[in-house]
């Protein structure tokens, strides 16, 4: 059984992981210091979702992948110049904040609207992918709300594997407590999957994929709809950096035996 799937991946950008982050309070609530100057990358979990989507599409002829992304247009454009060489997709860009301090529900409403605007969207073929949470807000709530708004009742979070069974049903591995996975079977699309890391390595840069992607990505960026988030339901009392520095005792000149003894004492304490 072969279905041509429509896979819509939701994913935004987050600061490059090694950057120093510091919160500041602006007129519109909390933000990151020098947010626009921080280099950005596609959210790591959303990236996994995108690679999984491309991989799934590759094995089901006629399938297509969209990436719906909400972020400042200029930053999205830049991130695309890294991501668009990885796998084929069509970009749908929304020009708005990518801050972690936005409300998941408001973001979900915008993403849903963007998904619904895809011409020829067919729910019987629809798989909505995203990261199970973001590296910015880290709520793990946006995708569920998108699914709920789209009326998708088969939702999975912390997904590490998606398999297509011969009968067309989907077999999904979700992370649960204790390092275990729950195995579920869903008869058919539509379904929503919030991905954890999956099992795919990062795809290599492929210039041809990049060329093809950019034919649609650039126009999509040029006509990216400016969107605003009201941010009214959420009030931040404070955002602060934790006191993270400890007084590190550096033990240099002890023998391995002494160190081991000290560690064992500590473990048993």
């Amino acid at each position: 059984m072969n279905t041509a799937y429509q896979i819509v991946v939701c994913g935004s950008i987050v600061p490059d992981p090694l950057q120093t982050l510091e919160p500041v309070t602006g007129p519109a609530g909390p933000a990151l210091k020098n947010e626009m100057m921080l280099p950005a990358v596609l959210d790591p979990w959303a990236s996994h979702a995108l690679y999984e989507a491309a991989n799934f599409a590759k094995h089901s002829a006629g399938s297509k992948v969209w990436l719906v992304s909400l972020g400042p247009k200029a930053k999205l454009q830049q991130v695309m110049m890294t991501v668009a060489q990885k796998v084929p997709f069509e970009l749908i860009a929304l020009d708005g904040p990518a801050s972690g301090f936005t409300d998941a529900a408001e973001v979900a409403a915008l993403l849903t609207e963007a998904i619904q605007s895809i011409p020829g969207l067919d729910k019987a073929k629809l798989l909505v992918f995203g990261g199970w949470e973001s590296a910015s807000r880290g709520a793990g709530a946006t995708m569920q709300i998108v699914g709920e708004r789209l009326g998708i009742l088969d939702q999975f979070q912390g997904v590490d594997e998606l398999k297509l069974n011969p009968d067309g049903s989907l077999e999904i591995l979700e992370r649960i407590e204790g390092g275990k996975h729950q195995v579920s079977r869903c008869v058919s699309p539509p379904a929503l999957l919030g991905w954890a890391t999956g099992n795919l390595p990062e795809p290599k840069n492929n210039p041809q994929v990049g060329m093809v992607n950019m034919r649609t990505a650039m126009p999509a960026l040029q006509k990216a709809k400016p969107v605003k988030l009201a941010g009214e339901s959420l009030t931040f009392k404070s955002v602060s950096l934790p006191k993270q520095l400890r007084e590190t005792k550096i033990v240099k000149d002890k023998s391995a035996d002494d160190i081991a003894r000290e560690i064992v004492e500590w473990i048993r304490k």
Partner: protein
Amino acid sequence: METILLLAHTEPDGTLAKSAFEILGAATSLNSSLAGSKIIAGLVGETVQSAADSIAKCGAVKFLGVAGADFAPSRYASDAAAAEAICRAANASLILAPATARWNRVLPAVAQRLGGHADTHITGIEASNGSISVNRWYYRQRMEASLQRKGRPWFILLEPGSQPAWGGERAPAKMETINVNLPETCKRTTVVGLREPTADAQTIRPDADLLLVAGAGWTKKQADGQPHVKEAEKLILGCLKLARASLGSSKSLVDLSGEGQATLSFLTHLNQIGQTGSTPRHAKGLATCCHGEEPHTVGWRFVNERRAINLDPGCGWARGKADVLYVADAFTVVAKVNELLAEKPAA
């Protein structure tokens, strides 16, 4: 006047997990600091009576339940229907629930369904002057925020391990069961089962006191110019077993397997701690052959006592990230640690 709903799901054996008692702890303390509020308990699962009995004395004015075979598995559609029904029946303004995988998957959507709001991964909750604030972390545990919401219902999913658990005697609880007829559209997904890591590779133990973190150094060339991966595996597994520790890993070590390089056979992405991995809670953490760089150590946010073994005295752990850094060869030290752990502790 808040109506606080404690929303929990039962375990396959009909009991409540520790995280549910923790939520109850938070709910009772919140209830006592809010004037005119009340607690309602709501339970979902195959059976709920026994669970209700275990919290009968918590001061809840009502016990609501949705039970039956349809509600045994952790499944979005049925869980959403059950949670929705209980929330509506309780007419709750605040819903406190443990941030388990099962509830995380569904409650933000239920909040949407009810026109409410949801905040997840909450690590602290308090009420003062009638207004409630919750704490949670942003940007992969790099900054902590305190936030409030005016809109209701407000779903607050509290992180397991972040609240003191409620303790009370069992007693018969008067259960009001709510009938939820699950339409076929909610049964399109079947939970087939659980996949557990194989017994000898059971390296993730969330309840362990000690987190043992392995870094990429274990697979690199050692002093003799050769890598000793087999020996590294033996030492790490030995230590895990003897110290009953949970195993974490740095991203670089997990990534090596993707590159087809020699790596520790029992490691998967699930072990990865840090920015793109997990942020587990353990009383103690011991890092070995790992540099303690920022993207990794953000995953140590909830590890209280931290020690590290690394050959480089200038590694990240030395920069205020560990309590103690042992500048030493982890192969030698862990071998000795295992030897000592294998001996009976002195009485």
